[in-house]
């Protein structure tokens, strides 16, 4: 023992309720607060005391930046294939053909563009990582917080470009970022 006789004795911890009883207390208190949110003397109201929501009857508002579904702005897409190649699940299918678009200015040359024939996202494969949205250089892909698009048949989870475009109106406007960072901010094209 290195302690000198003069060193103060370590303080004994205060006697505590055994953890076993404490645990029982926690669960009982939670049950009480769920069953009687207004106090024990008021009538029980578990539907208000519960932290959960009875889903099909009442719905929670998803967070504005929630990753619900990916939407496509078809006019912005150049069929560059970056999203399809970065997708870890290979769930994006793109087919396109070259075509001539009318010139931007009077008397100019017609522009050569890629017109989309097919842009499908297979939501039965998608893992909602958001890499495609991140990687798109042309502001064609956006997250929307909508989440209610489950299907009885798994094949119906393959959304084509019209279906993907319909989600666009649910995309919320992004909040403004701090000054100086606007250059890099992706904007919702409206």
């Amino acid at each position: 023992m290195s302690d000198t006789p003069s060193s103060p004795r370590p303080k004994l911890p205060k006697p505590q309720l055994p953890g076993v009883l404490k645990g029982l207390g926690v669960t009982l208190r939670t049950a009480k607060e769920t069953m009687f949110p207004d106090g024990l003397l008021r009538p029980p109201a578990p539907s208000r005391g519960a932290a959960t929501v009875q889903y099909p009857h009442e719905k929670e508002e998803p967070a504005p930046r929630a990753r619900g579904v990916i939407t496509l702005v078809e006019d912005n897409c150049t069929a560059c294939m970056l999203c399809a190649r970065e997708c870890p699940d290979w769930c994006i299918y793109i087919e396109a053909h070259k075509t001539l678009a009318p010139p931007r200015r009077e008397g100019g040359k017609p522009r050569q563009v890629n017109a989309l024939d097919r842009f499908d996202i297979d939501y039965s494969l998608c893992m909602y990582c958001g890499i495609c949205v991140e990687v798109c250089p042309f502001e064609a892909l956006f997250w929307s917080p909508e989440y209610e698009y489950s299907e009885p048949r798994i094949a119906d989870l393959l959304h084509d470009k019209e279906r993907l475009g319909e989600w666009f109106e649910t995309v919320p406007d992004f909040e403004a970022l701090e000054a100086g960072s606007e250059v890099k901010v992706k904007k919702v094209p409206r």
Partner: protein
Amino acid sequence: MSAAVLGIELAYWQSTLIRVVAGLVAVLLLTGGVVYLYLFKFVSFMQSRLGPMEAGPYGSLQLLAEVGKWLQKEDIHTEDSDRLVFGLAPAVVLSSTFLMFVVIPAGPDLVIANLGTGVYYVLAVSALSVLGILMAGWASANKYALMGALRAGGQLIAYELPMVLAVLGVVIMAGSLNLQDIVAAQAGGEIFGFSGIGNPYVLTQFVAFAVFMIAVQAELTQTPFDMPIAESELVAGYQVEYSGIRFLVYFISEFATAVAFAAVASTLFLGGWALPTSWGLSAGVMNVVGPLVVATKAVLLVGVVFWVRFSFPRFREDQLQKLAWKVLIPIALANILVTAVFKVAF
């Protein structure tokens, strides 16, 4: 039972039929009520959620929906399983459960069989379920099932002992192995000269009561002691290969056993069907009130079991055995000694 209640003479087969049907209905109603009240609702509230709400008002018909679902499932078994033993195992477990209810008194005349050695019978019959569990584990031809069954075997046998020893304290106090006599001894007893509420043994045998309830928790393989069906390591233990109606049998027997042990505990420790004081009620009235009293006590005790079940994490296997052999059994033995000394001294 029935003849004495109705005051009519019944043939043996008639009274037996009435006893069996009444017993089955009471057991299944109580079990269903306990499942709804605790497994569906109380536990949900402890986890700050509502539990089933769709089937019937406040989800009260959820259990029927679940039973319907299990009944339509395919009857499957593994290729190597011993089909006869595999099919027999749930029946053994269930019959062990139902046989426990035979001696539990619900009124002065309301007992299916008033055995002189009721306590002994209840504990012996409840130990039969080990047999069914070992049969299930072996016949499933599945290593998880076998390991779960062996764990269950070790655990149930280990916790039989403190349970029996704890009950011995009550038996010494009452001076009888008959459950009706134990109820009467509690109703007519006195605590050091005070006889206002009789002598419910939970007050004088509180150590035995605590040991008994811990052992019951382990006998039911409810959560702090659910090593045999530990889902994170054994998938579902001995129930792994069971589905459909056979799983339903395990499910019923799990909760019916909880009710049975709670009824035994309320008979041994809480005064059984008797009210705290007699209120001057005749035996005929008590035959009506008694079942309600004992059922209320049993349901409250099942609530304690479920409360503990959903509050604690699981014991490790060695901790579990240590608790039985090194803590509970010495405590129960000391309790017997002290009880015997007090019995002789006072």
